[in-house]
């Protein structure tokens, strides 16, 4: 491609001003994209990748933001200093964007039809009936069924994947030349993610769109990118054709990032220790939620779990995998009696959990601990780390006498890879990965034998995910813990779980030893979960060529 790039960012430096002073979000960032090309900006949270996107769209609020220096050229013309009115007209017509969280990015109080039609009316292209007709066409194009009716629906009435389709529709409505996709599939299930990525590629083929895709997800990046720019702490550390960056990364940061990719070929079989009487034995667990009926409506029921059975042996790691709505989190909630089961039994060392009295339940909860998805909202922001970790000892008075608390908290912090002096800090002073370490330390404070991890790494960056999982694996070996590891991400548990339970719509659809399940999945659904992880683009090209 020897022609001039359609969009070029040159030496972009953006600062944010806050009470504590000046924070440099991007520092001398330069990249460009050609017509019909996909450029992926890869980086972890806080790397400044989204700020670059906002700057291109003119969405940086000044103050607190400030574009210190740099040019953004659209077809050679600088759009940073362009008169506001002309700049506004580029948005939507020439350059469009889709965002990470489509529910938050759609206005909740207007119909999607209204929001779509507005794209036409704002730029004076069509109004009234004509805008409506064109909007219906757009919805059909992005794969919304029955678009005539759905036009009058509100965002909350759609599923996550459909909302992202609507966002994409809004972005491509006027046939823009550049589409910026800011983490477009991060909030979606893997199978939906694959559909959305396919849709983007189809639109790119049809319209010759230039796509600037921003993501932290290595697999998504590999699947989409022609070229890749890797960002770290506001700077570009590496740039090149996708295949080169992935297969022969030059910069140390990129190499570290790439090593976080789950290794598909190698699996360390653990010595078979899963012997002895089961710690947990779950039989025919069923949960039906009664939905509150409308005034004249019939009672509705939602079957969240349907006859789920499994056993967990001491020191064993059981992965429960499924997409949202599969009932995997309900299993955890029922086991810890955070919700009542409708039917079935769950035996902990032979005693039915659902029939335990208060005293027994207290003892049980000590031995079976939970680690949640969002370490931030599951910790009291006004308690320091010492109080958070030592709280179980206040509740269960017999674990540890008070004079030894200090020493034990320090021990636990070191066990999870933090330092003893962190005890005096508060949750907001830690990064996401560190907070999850604190949550694990808190869980370990009770001396549990089972840890239930509900999407415990889903909110973290990929490289941090791997660190937390290896911490859990290390603790398993040192303390003989058993895990129930609940996740939507099947590949991530390949090197960690001994056995896997695949769930769909409240049922267990497949169960097996990890490696056997990966090598030889019985169900289409399992195969989809394994393969949903997007394939690199260069492999697709080879596959197509052969």
């Amino acid at each position, binding site marked *: 491609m020897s022609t001039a790039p359609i969009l070029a960012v040159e030496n972009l430096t953006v600062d944010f001003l806050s009470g504590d002073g000046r924070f440099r979000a991007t520092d001398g960032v330069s990249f460009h994209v050609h017509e019909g090309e996909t450029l992926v900006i890869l980086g972890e949270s806080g790397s400044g990748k989204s700020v670059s996107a906002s700057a291109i769209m003119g*969405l940086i609020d000044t103050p607190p933001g400030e574009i210190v220096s740099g040019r953004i050229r659209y077809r050679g013309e600088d759009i940073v200093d362009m008169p506001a009115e002309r700049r506004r007209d580029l948005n939507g017509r020439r350059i469009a*964007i889709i965002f990470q969280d489509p529910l*938050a990015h759609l206005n909740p109080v207007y119909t999607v039809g209204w929001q779509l039609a507005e794209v036409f009316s704002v730029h004076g292209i069509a109004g009234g009936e004509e805008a409506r007709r064109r909007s219906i066409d757009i919805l059909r194009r992005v794969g919304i069924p029955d678009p005539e009716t759905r036009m009058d629906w509100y965002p909350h009435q759609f599923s996550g994947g459909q909302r992202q389709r609507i966002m994409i529709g*809004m972005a491509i409505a006027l046939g823009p030349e550049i589409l910026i996709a800011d983490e477009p599939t991060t909030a979606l299930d893997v199978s939906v993610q694959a559909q959305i990525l396919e849709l983007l590629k189809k639109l790119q083929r049809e319209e010759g769109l230039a796509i600037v895709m921003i993501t932290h997800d290595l697999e998504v990046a590999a699947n989409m990118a022609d070229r890749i720019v890797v960002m770290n702490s506001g700077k570009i550390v590496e740039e090149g054709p996708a295949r080169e960056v992935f297969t022969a990364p030059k910069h140390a940061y990129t190499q570290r990032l790439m090593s976080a990719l789950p290794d598909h070929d190698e699996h360390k079989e653990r010595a078979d220790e899963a012997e002895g009487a089961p710690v947990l034995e779950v039989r025919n667990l069923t949960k039906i939620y009664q939905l509150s009926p409308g*005034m004249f409506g019939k009672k509705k029921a939602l079957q969240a779990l349907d006859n789920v059975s499994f056993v967990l042996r001491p020191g064993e790691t059981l992965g429960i995998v499924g997409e949202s709505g599969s009932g995997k989190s309900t299993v955890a909630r029922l086991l810890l009696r955070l919700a009542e089961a409708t039917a079935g039994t769950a035996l902990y060392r032979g005693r039915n959990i659902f029939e335990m009295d208060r005293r027994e339940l207290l003892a049980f909860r000590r031995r079976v601990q939970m680690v949640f998805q969002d370490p931030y909202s599951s910790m009291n922001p006004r308690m320091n780390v010492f109080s958070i970790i030592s709280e179980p000892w206040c509740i269960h008075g017999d674990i540890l006498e008070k004079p030894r608390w200090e020493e034990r908290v320090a021990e636990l912090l070191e066990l999870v890879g933090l330092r003893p002096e962190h005890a005096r800090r508060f949750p907001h002073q830690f990064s996401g990965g560190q907070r999850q370490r604190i949550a694990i330390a808190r869980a370990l404070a009770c001396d549990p034998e089972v840890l239930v991890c509900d999407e415990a790494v889903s909110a973290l960056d990929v490289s941090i995910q791997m660190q937390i999982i290896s911490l859990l694996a290390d603790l398993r070996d040192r303390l003989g813990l058993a895990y129930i590891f609940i996740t939507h991400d099947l590949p991530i548990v390949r090197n960690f779980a001994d056995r896997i339970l695949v769930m769909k719509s409240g049922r267990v659809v497949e169960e097996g030893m990890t490696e056997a399940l990966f090598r030889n999945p019985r169900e289409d659904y399992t195969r989809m979960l394994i393969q949903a992880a997007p394939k690199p683009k260069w492999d697709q090209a080879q596959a197509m060529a052969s």
Partner: protein
Amino acid sequence: MFGYVFKRSLQSLVAVAGLLVLVFFLSRLTGDPAYLYLPLDSTEAQRQAFNELHGFDDPLYIQFGRYLADLLHFDFGTALSRNRPAMEVALEAFPETLKLAAIAMTLSLVLAIVVGALAATKPGGIFDRLATTISLAGASAPDFWVAIVAILFFSVSLGLLPTSGTGTPLHWIMPIGVLMLRPFGLLTQVVRGSMMGVLTSPYIKTAQAKGVRRTKIVFVHALRNALLPVITVAGDLAASLINGAVVVETIFGWPGIGKLMIDAIVRRDFALVQATVLITAIAIFFLNIVIDLVYAALDPRIRHQTA
């Protein structure tokens, strides 16, 4: 959605019933009306006769039973202080309060929305600082003091406006002005705060990315979302105005329900107290239904909640 309004209405009806019981018994704790209505030198026998005549000598539960039975016949008793049916007196005063409240509330709401929204578009700007100062002052200034100072200035010194009473359009200016202070001040603050929050929402970024003009973003995309908390506060304020702007009505001699209620309490006119409370309670009951409907009209998520 109608189920939702229906449920809310039932809850409010229970509250209205509870209020009636409470007012009935509390008003009778204030003392013996015979001492107020008979001359100071009346004898015990005369007071006895007065109480027998009006049924105040019966045990409270019998009086209460009689009150409920009368209510079912739409008989609200006789206002002792005026010797007329209590409800008739209350219904004469109520429209005066309602007019005052409706005008003051509408003006404050419209003004607060415009001022609050504009202030929020540039937080810390000159307009914002001005609006914040004025609205804070309005929300916190004691209305009786402002009312008296206003009378002193506009009526006594300048001779522009009548001091009190009703009749000409000029009579409306000061009561409405003073009545508006608090709702305008509070609502401006709420609109500003809510708007500032909404303007940082992700969907505002989407609108910007679509190329929508700033004014349309503020007054179409953001405003409808920002109004939700405003409606709640406006409802509370409107209820307090309907309840009778006691201070303002008293100072400006406005023949509204607030003034009537105070008069009735002071004169131990039980039937009139009950009638005025019942009327305002019913009005607030309907006001709440209206607010629920407005809420549902603004936010589709509420409409679909129990559908």
